[in-house]
């Protein structure tokens, strides 16, 4: 624990996860593309795993291992060639508001203010306006952007835009929050701040999160469980629980457990590179 007293996180103990049904179930999923020349490229090869409710799952892997594709499949933005994905026991069949997503690039609607961006999903669901206002105020405060509610995206920094994107996805109260390298484009200082903020927001919302990154530090800092993927074709190499207790702050990177895990994951990814070359 750091010297500074932090707001306590309301979190069920890790052991509680075992009893809860899988929030996300990826069942024998393959994804193949046909190249223009007619060659078949296998992006994902019979991938199966489950993510329990309220867990923070991080998928790490080298570029081209299909980790982002897994998120797009879960979001219903693409269809698997084989296998099924279930969210909350429901088979994924097209996109829906029950699976919120934060993208790698900036995807705020530039013609809408911060407030209107967060309202977007709520308006599509035709919630009453006073309810919308309450929800938007709550999430504006959660991500610390109450003062910027009437700003347009172009007036915000990259970190602020991703905070709005997180608020916008959470405002819909999805079953699961999918995050595709959301901090990849940010400078390292901002990224650290965003990781802390995300841990805090997640602690309050208790959403199931599936977070994709290639940054091993980020993975260990954030995750309850890490799914290490290998490439060509994309597959799950190993699933690791992160035994570091929460709340975690940025000092965890110096803990022996953290370093041990990092070395292990680096080794796994290194093996993968060796297989390719």
């Amino acid at each position, binding site marked *: 624990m750091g010297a500074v007293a932090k707001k306590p996180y309301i979190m069920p103990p890790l052991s509680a996860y075992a009893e809860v049904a899988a929030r996300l179930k990826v069942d024998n999923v393959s994804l193949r593309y046909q190249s223009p020349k007619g060659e078949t490229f296998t992006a994902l090869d019979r991938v199966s795993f489950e993510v329990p409710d309220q867990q923070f799952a991080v998928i790490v892997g080298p570029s081209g291992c299909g980790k982002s594709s897994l998120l*797009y499949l879960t*979001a*219903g*933005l693409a269809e698997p060639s084989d296998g099924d994905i279930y969210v909350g026991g429901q088979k994924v069949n097209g*996109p*829906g*508001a029950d*699976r*919120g*997503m934060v*993208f790698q*690039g900036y*995807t705020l*609607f*530039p*013609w809408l203010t911060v407030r209107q961006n967060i309202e*977007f*999903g709520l308006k*599509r*669901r035709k919630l009453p306006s006073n309810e919308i206002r309450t929800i938007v105020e709550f999430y504006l405060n959660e991500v610390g952007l109450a003062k910027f509610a009437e700003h*347009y*995206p*172009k007036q915000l920094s990259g970190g602020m835009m991703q905070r709005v*994107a997180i608020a*916008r*996805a959470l405002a*819909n109260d999805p079953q699961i929050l*999918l995050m595709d390298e959301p901090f990849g484009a940010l400078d390292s200082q901002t990224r650290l701040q965003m990781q802390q903020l995300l841990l805090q927001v997640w602690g309050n919302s208790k959403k199931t999160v599936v977070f994709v990154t290639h940054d091993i530090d980020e993975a260990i800092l954030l995750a309850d469980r890490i799914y290490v993927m290998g490439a060509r074709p994309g597959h799950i190499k190993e699933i690791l629980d992160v035994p570091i207790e929460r709340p975690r702050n940025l000092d965890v990177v110096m803990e022996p457990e953290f370093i041990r895990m990092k070395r292990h994951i680096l080794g796994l990814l290194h093996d993968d590179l060796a297989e390719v070359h």
Partner: protein
Amino acid sequence: MATQKNWVQRCLTPKVELPRKLVLSAGMLCWLLVLGLWAGFSYGGVVPSMFLPTPGDVLAAGVRLTHDGTLGKHVLASLEVVLIGFVVSSVVSVPLGLLMGSFRIVQAFLEPLVNFIRYLPVTSFVPLFILWIGIGLEQRVAVIIFGVFFQQLVMIADVSKGVQKDLINASYTLGASRRDVVMHVLGPASLPGILDTLRVTMGWAWTYLVVAELVAASSGLGYISLKAMRGFQVDVIFLAIAIIGLLGLITDQLFRLLRLRIAAWAQ
């Protein structure tokens, strides 16, 4: 001295911003040069007044034609044709272009034909339109629509095609339906590009208007221009050209202001 040298250097460095005053003065200077040359050639008698009127002659013609009401009548006649043609064309091309850029099937259906027609010179259709529709207002409107519509269609389809796929994906994950995507994402995201397209094609509409009026019309700025040529009234030709330029400039600025107002986010 030091600052002057600095300015000269700034002017000679690629892509360096300059003070607003200097920029405006440069634009004015160009105008003054052209007007000065014109005045020099015409008042100096270098070019006979039958071919090049003096600026004073053109102004006098303007006053004369304004007083007897002909100018107002013909300006209104031209404006009427341009606006009807442009509005009718845009009302159809904007939604259809959006659909064409958003739905592959609409594109596949329309594109081969549109790309064929797009390269046909509008002027070659004028005789056909006269034969079909006569020489009334409808004929001139038809020329403008034919000249502008297919270009607008392709340009607006490109605008809508250029909308970032991730914005659409994001809206789906926020619960948007396909209809929502068209109405609440593709529409607003395309708005600045649509306004730019309208602004550019408005200029073309003026061009086709004059073409149509020169060939067959009994009113309009192109018509008085042609009539003036027959009567060797070169001052009136100059006046008509200047007014067309002025009207073009005004509509262009109106579109610029409209874009600033309703698509300020894209500035």
